[in-house]
């Protein structure tokens, strides 16, 4: 296959970036999208040029590191991660535009690599539970109905990739935060911190500068794990309940805010 790639190149966080066009004729339809970029980079290195920087780690769809906004969609035309996208999803001779995630809280570090530590700070604000140390408790000690366990598991599959933010016209992180809040709110283990968790995570999300949700559902359509916006409705319920019934907390919105 022969492709024309328009790739966003940016030397550093404060540099002005621009699109560079590359003609890539060593593409096989069986390559993954990242392998296609690996081959491009090998060629660039051979020519003594700076390779294209992009994020990746597991290359099996579970770590959430690979990003890339491909032809106007996060992770490209399929609802999957970029590492699981193959070149057979493109046509020979096609022009592919590759951009980094665009969101104020996700600043570009270099080329296609963005800093997603805003997600870590949201997670640290409340996405945890308290457990006693000591021997591991018996697995089935706490009864959890199958339906609830399934729903919590669906939310827990979120890999923190940020495609929801990238896809949303408001760069809203609601689907990510909803997945994290929902997962722990559904389980008995999460109940001790249930109210302060949602309060703090929403406060941190706002402090990071993510947009507000307008229910366009673009996040759900692009999420590689198929997280449903039903979790956003649950986040809203959890938030209303927490704000109206929790004990007063000192407002603490760390991070950048």
């Amino acid at each position: 296959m022969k492709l024309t790639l328009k790739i966003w190149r940016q030397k550093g966080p404060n540099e002005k970036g621009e699109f560079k066009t590359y003609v890539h004729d060593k593409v096989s339809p069986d390559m993954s999208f990242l392998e296609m970029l690996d081959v491009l980079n090998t060629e660039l290195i051979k020519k003594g040029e700076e390779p294209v920087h992009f994020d990746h780690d597991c290359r099996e769809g579970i770590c959430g590191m690979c990003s890339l906004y491909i032809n106007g969609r996060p992770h490209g035309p399929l609802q999957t991660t970029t590492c699981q996208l193959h070149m057979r999803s493109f046509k020979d001779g096609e022009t592919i535009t590759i951009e980094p995630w665009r969101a104020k809280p996700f600043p570009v570090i270099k080329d296609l690599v963005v800093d997603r530590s805003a997600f870590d700070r949201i997670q640290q604000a409340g996405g945890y539970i308290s457990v006693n140390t000591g021997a591991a408790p018996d697995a089935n000690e706490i009864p959890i109905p199958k339906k609830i366990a399934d729903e919590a598991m669906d939310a827990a599959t979120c890999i923190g990739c940020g495609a929801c933010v990238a896809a949303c016209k408001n760069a809203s992180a609601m689907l990510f935060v909803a997945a994290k809040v929902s997962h722990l709110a559904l389980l008995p283990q999460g109940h001790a911190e249930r109210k302060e968790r949602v309060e703090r995570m929403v406060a941190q999300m706002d402090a990071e500068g993510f947009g507000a949700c307008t229910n366009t559902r673009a996040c759900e359509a692009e999420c590689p794990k198929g997280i449903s916006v039903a979790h956003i409705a649950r986040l809203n319920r959890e938030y209303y309940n927490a704000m109206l019934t929790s004990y007063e907390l000192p407002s603490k919105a760390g991070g950048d805010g």
Partner: protein
Amino acid sequence: MNNWFIRFLTSSVGKKLLMALTGLFLILFLVVHLSGNLQLLHNDGGKSFNIYAEFMSTNVFIQTISKLNFTFILLHVLLSLYLTIQNRRARGGKRYAVTSGKSSVWASRNMGILGTLVLIFLVVHLRHFYGEMHFGSVPTVNYDGKEVRNLAAVVDYWFSKDWYVALYVFCMGALGFHLWHGFVSAFQTLGLNHPKYNGLIFFVGKAFAVIVPALFAYIPIAMYFNL
């Protein structure tokens, strides 16, 4: 910003709650307003409409609700402006070079534009009808010894102008799209999303978004063409 209530309502989720509540109130208002407007379709020289309009503009209870309604429209508009600007900023300095509309519905991405069209309509409409009724001079008619202002004649006047009817119908289209997304969206914002009743909200929401603006738009068309 340490007060919990202020923190609640100024958070992103809280602002959306206010958008949803004011939006739902405006939806109720549309129903009442439409039921009044439909009186214009009676072939009685505007009598039932005028009696209704006189009642609405003089009844103390209705006038209180009306003030509340104005407050909510203002709140809905100001919040929408704030949210739209904030949401644009969240994208950061650089926007995408290529975007795709495949993952969401057009109306959901253009609530700001659609709302602005509804707002332009509201201003024109208030100036010609509400303004005349409350601050202007509307000629009166006599029904069984009772002096009633003839708002139906004012409506007749404006609905005989082609540009006015066209503007009216166009803006009702915008309202329809606003509601196509807004109705269902408001319930999601309230946290009401459950397989038990999602189907009902969806059906009622989409039907409302088509039928109500269509009926509003039918009235000027019917009066223009003397249907």
